[in-house]
């Protein structure tokens, strides 16, 4: 079978800093894969490589079987197919929530304004933020900002969504509302790759877990295996520290 996303021996280093050393894994369409591991294990780097925000040093990243790391390819149309949401939201502070969401479809897809308004309003309604469309980012709670960031990525109609520790900057009581959105996306059939520290969520929602340490995948498999019967001692050590 062909996978939606396939990483083959991906290498990326920044001098000696956190990098990836030969990462390979597959994500099938509609699957939710969680990357876990301590800070600096290479999770974020990997996601940034998949989104082509970083160029890989070696290896291949296949989207629908097509190598997207080919340096001759124009990265813009590929990025539109891959949404990414960041830990620090990165909303544009000078635009209100609606403008944040509408900017890229308007510029990239040249969607007519009337149609854009309809689809954007529908997105905000779908994620329970219809009354917040006119608010600027600094008028929104962390959880609301992160949901707007997710809506902004969704507005480009991506085929796959990457989440880089999207709940790590949130107050504990706001984490739930964002995780609910992720579940909702999964249930609607979206393909998701998460770098996360939310072990409870990973266990409950993930189809596959990859445990990364120092830039390599130490162990991967379904959540029951990773959480209940980890084979590697490094996995056990990590889990005992975080759970």
């Amino acid at each position, binding site marked *: 079978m062909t996978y939606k996303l396939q990483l083959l021996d991906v290498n990326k280093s920044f001098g000696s800093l956190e990098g990836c050393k030969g990462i390979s894994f597959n994500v099938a369409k509609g699957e939710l894969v969680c990357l876990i591991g301590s800070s600096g294990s290479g999770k974020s780097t990997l996601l*940034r490589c998949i*989104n082509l*925000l970083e160029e890989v040093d070696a290896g291949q990243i296949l989207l629908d079987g097509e190598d997207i790391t080919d340096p001759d390819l124009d990265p*813009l*149309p590929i*990025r*539109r197919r*891959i*949404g*990414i949401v*960041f830990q*620090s939201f*990165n*909303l*544009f*502070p*000078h635009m209100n929530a609606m403008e944040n969401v509408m*900017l*890229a479809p308007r*510029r*990239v897809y040249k969607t007519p304004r009337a149609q854009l308004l309809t689809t954007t309003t529908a997105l905000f309604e779908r994620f329970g933020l219809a009354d917040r469309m006119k608010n*600027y980012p*600094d*008028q929104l709670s962390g959880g609301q900002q992160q949901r707007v*960031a997710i809506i*902004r*990525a969704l507005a*480009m109609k991506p085929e796959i969504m990457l989440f880089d520790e999207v709940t790590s900057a949130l107050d504990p009581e706001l984490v739930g509302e964002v995780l609910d959105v992720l579940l909702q996306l999964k249930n609607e059939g979206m393909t998701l790759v998460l770098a996360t520290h939310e072990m409870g969520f990973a266990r409950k929602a993930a189809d596959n877990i990859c445990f990364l340490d120092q830039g390599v995948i130490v162990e991967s498999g379904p959540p029951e295996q990773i959480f209940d019967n980890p084979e590697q001692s490094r996995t056990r050590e990590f889990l005992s520290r975080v759970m």
Partner: protein
Amino acid sequence: MSVDTKKISPATSETVAGYSKQARQLREAKMRKRSTLIATFSTIAVFLAIYFLVPLAPGWEKVKQSFFNWEIFQKTFPTLLNAFLWDIAIFAWSAPIIAVWGLIIALARDARSPALFPLRLFGTIYNDIFRGVPVILAIYLIGFGVPGLGLPRPWNSPYIWGTVALVLTYSAYVSEIYRSGIESIHESQRAAAKSLGLNHWDVMRFVILPQALRRVVPANMNMLIALQKDVALLSFIGPVELLRQAGVFKSLFANFTPYLGASVIFLAVPIPATRLADAMMARQDKQRR
């Protein structure tokens, strides 16, 4: 103040040791009043000292005659005010050109693709040159040099070429201010915009520049005030604007008071302009709340 540990009981406004809320407020009010009083007295003391001590200087009578001559001030002031219209005009047409040309240089210096390297090189050399050469030299070289090519009227006017010199010099400084603003926007904003599939120019135009320009308003306001004064440098190549007019009067009356008049006029612009800019920024901030 020592607290009797034996007496600690649930803190209410009655039982808590030390100052009560009212006592605190009273004390603060008293302290505030005292600071105001001290500030007032020390200011008055300084001014009195200047008022009484300066006239004791041996040359005071002469200085008073040649710098603070009320009669000459009255006689020259209206003409000076008229000459100032030239400064305003030169300022008014150079400021917008500087704002645009400075931005173009800043964007040229920010160009990242290898094909645009010549643009970046141009921006760098341009800024090196025009920030390195004193304004007055640029005015002399361009203001005298270009009309020297024998251009027909009105293209040999010192007003035009003096303005060009000002624009070229100030754009170099302003472009550096723009650039500092562009660079102050966190890389994550660029990443977020790029990840949505926006191209380099759209990222700049819709995400980076609107934030960067807002951030550098105060710094550019400073440049605007400096420009307003440097317009007077054009007097060295001909235009009879305020400074030049004051110089003419100085020679005519053999008295420096017209320079004082010119200073008063120059001062009248930046102070309200700065307040206006502050108010504009404050209003902009409030609109977003």
